[in-house]
């Protein structure tokens, strides 16, 4: 299935508490971490070099926080078109390890008008297979 650009949410039809359709990702692989190293320009070896990760006290390599934030970006742009995204932010609350199965979820937390735009505030997060949130984020999109 190829993801398609969604239409802008319609302000009057959006209700606080509405949820975004969750996305369950394939398990995080070391290959994906290598791709993100190249794709993002974040060359910190701690994400791809096991020897380096162990030297600094970690049991294994682990995912770039920003890889997971990229997943949150995918979730938000499945809800509203790219040019409607006004804010995306997150706290990185726990480490994502190879093999982890991440679920992306989100819900509407507020509606407001600001600067002539009708805005929708969202809570978005990444949660691992143990039910632990790895990212606790928020986004704001402009509705039509």
């Amino acid at each position: 299935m190829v993801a398609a650009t969604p239409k802008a949410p319609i302000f009057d039809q959006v209700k606080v508490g509405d949820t975004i359709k969750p996305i369950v990702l394939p398990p995080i692989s070391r290959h994906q971490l290598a791709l993100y190293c190249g794709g993002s320009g974040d060359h910190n070896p701690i994400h791809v070099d096991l020897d380096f990760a162990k030297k600094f006290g970690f049991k294994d390599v682990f995912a770039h926080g920003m890889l997971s934030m990229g997943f949150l970006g995918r979730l938000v742009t499945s809800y509203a078109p790219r040019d409607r995204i006004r804010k995306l932010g997150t706290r990185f609350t726990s480490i994502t390890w190879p093999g982890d199965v991440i679920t992306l979820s989100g819900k509407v937390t507020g509606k407001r008008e600001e600067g002539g735009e009708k805005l929708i505030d969202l809570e978005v997060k990444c949660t691992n297979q143990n039910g632990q949130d790895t990212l606790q984020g928020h986004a704001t999109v402009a509705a039509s």
Partner: protein
Amino acid sequence: MQLDKKVIGHEFEAFSTTVEAGKVKLFCKAIGEEDPIYVDEAAAKAAGYRAVPVPPTFLQAITNDDPGKGGLLRLLNVDIGLILHGEQHYDYYAPVFVGDKITCQQKVTDMYDKKGGALWFVVSETSMKDQSGKLVAKGTGITVVRNPDAGKK
């Protein structure tokens, strides 16, 4: 190890970089993004964009094009193995497109510690302007530094 609060306010040298299509494509592959607007100009134009836009967090790849990359680590004098990403926030004022020349300017805006100095938090802001000088985005990041001396006392 003590971090020096005098670095608050430090401004890094600005740099400019042009957004490359191939890099956006690899970024999309890495995050599993399959919307054709990010790789296919015809699809982007059909969706109403003037060119191929970049995914929201591709801004990180733009800031990582800094020829002086790692400046924050050098400023703090800490090893890359000791840092973690605490928070990241983006404000988007306009989409960024393939072919845009983006100028980034990063500065340190705050610094504080937690857990009795075991963890330091360094806040920095990066403004991003396009080739016309228009502010297109602002990034705010919090870098967490694990103090290797914590617990040694």
